């Protein structure tokens, strides 16, 4: 009898759905996007025209749809950045056993997947919730040269990945009422963290953020990505007590608010 119950527990429809393949979660996610799209979302970025995007983006609303729109804009940024870098040839193909190129091809594949996934989640390009890709200038008016200077490319990659981790984290509360969307966002969030960790190692850093340090060789302009990362008190618990503030702060990544991320992203949006 217990064996039958055991089998039942693994064939239960709800269980299968809740732990289904990622292909399933993809289609579920798409349906949810469509369902949400049917509901009127008055404050979505969709209200903005291309003309509004010709300059800065603005903070998305603190809603599940707003969080997805916000995430999509960040993924557009990352996707275009890596796509341009791969096209430019700035990433060395042979050094370190081809490591750098393998790493950024994989990251680029993931960011491209994330763009497609989020567009589907928002109900597709025809959905009123869809937000178009802004116009990016990764040189920031000629300040940076990421597609000819590899160290600059690496520095910006680190900044974008560490920003992505903090940005998704900051949206979690906006998704708490939409469990399937929250799960998907968490699944992207941890991939961004895997990326960030690897890019930091390519730059000779630890994979985690010590205190609020942007790390050796990072332009001062990227410090906004790291401000506030040095927290050593979590829910009243002193995380620095056992092994010091570096270890204590490394053990926790901190969120960025929507506005903080928008301000960072706008540096690269024209």
């Amino acid at each position, binding site marked *: 009898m217990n064996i039958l119950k055991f089998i039942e527990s693994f064939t239960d429809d709800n269980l299968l759905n809740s732990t289904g393949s990622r292909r399933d979660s993809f289609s579920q996610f798409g349906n949810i996007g469509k369902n949400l799209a049917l509901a009127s979302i008055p404050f979505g970025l969709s209200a903005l025209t291309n003309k509004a995007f010709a300059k800065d983006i603005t903070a998305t609303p603190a809603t599940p749809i707003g969080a997805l729109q916000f995430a999509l804009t960040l993924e557009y940024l990352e996707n275009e950045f890596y796509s341009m870098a791969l096209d430019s040839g700035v990433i060395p193909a042979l050094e370190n056993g081809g490591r750098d190129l393998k790493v950024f091809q994989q990251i680029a594949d993931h960011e491209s997947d994330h763009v497609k996934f989020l567009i589907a989640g928002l109900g597709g390009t025809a959905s009123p919730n869809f937000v178009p890709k802004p116009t990016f200038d990764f040189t920031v008016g000629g300040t940076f040269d990421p597609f000819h200077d590899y160290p600059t490319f690496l520095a910006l990659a680190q900044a974008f990945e560490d920003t992505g981790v903090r940005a998704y984290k900051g949206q979690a509360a906006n998704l708490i009422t939409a469990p399937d969307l929250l799960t998907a966002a968490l699944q992207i969030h941890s991939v961004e963290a895997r990326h960030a960790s690897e890019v930091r190692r390519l730059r000779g850093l630890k994979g985690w953020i010590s205190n609020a340090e942007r790390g050796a060789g990072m332009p001062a302009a990227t410090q906004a990505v790291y401000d506030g990362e040095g927290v050593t008190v*979590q829910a009243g618990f002193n995380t620095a007590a056992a092994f010091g503030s570096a270890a204590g702060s490394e053990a926790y990544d901190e969120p960025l608010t929507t506005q903080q991320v928008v301000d960072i992203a706008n540096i690269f949006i024209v």
Partner: protein
Amino acid sequence: MKNEVKIHEVDPSLNSRRSFLKLSGLTLVTTGLVLAGCSDNDNDNNMEDTSLPGVRNGIFDLGSGDFGVLTYAYALEQLEADFYTKVVNSTNFNTVFNDTERQVLTDLYHHEVVHRDFFKAALTGALPDPGSQLLPTLSFTYGSLNFNSRNEVLATAKALEDTGVAAYNGAGRLIKTADYLLLAGKIVSVEARHASAIRSLINPNSKDFAGDDIVNMSTGLDDAKDPSKILPIAANFITTKFTAKYLP
């Protein structure tokens, strides 16, 4: 051998409506963690949703709701902290691992101990009656794992970190309080940074840091698993009996 799953009859008086499976490695046949399977379509969910962690029918149950999820996380962090404590204190740590590997493993030891002690403090402060509701300090076994084997230690670390990421990703939706969700989010990305680092140590000069074996190749999504899928993995290492009857 270590991953062998055995299903045992458990005293049906505990809860005749549920299935219990006992998972055990050969080394922990007599002490294996008891896990309770839980159907999503049970009719008494209202009562279960308010279940606090604590001993029921002689066995500690993780409970449900936010405290259940936090207690679940505390159990997993206890395991990770214990593992890395043993790694860095193993006799030949300084000769088995190179400088980079020791740096990573020592950092992970620090981070996981901080996570474990954080959950203990946070739960002690938040539970209505921590004396009876705080998950006890668990005991662990690593079977035949050789802590002086670089390959075995790194492979186990990879499994623990990937499992940790999938566990937090799967549990986020079970958390109802935004502050708790944020705390879990602060930790899960560090676990993902760890997983990436360990994977790079095992297979440098590759895309394994976010490999196709763990990140879905069409959606770019990381793994997410329910507690009922995670705990059997953890049960290979945890010898203290507890149940998770009210978590999906």
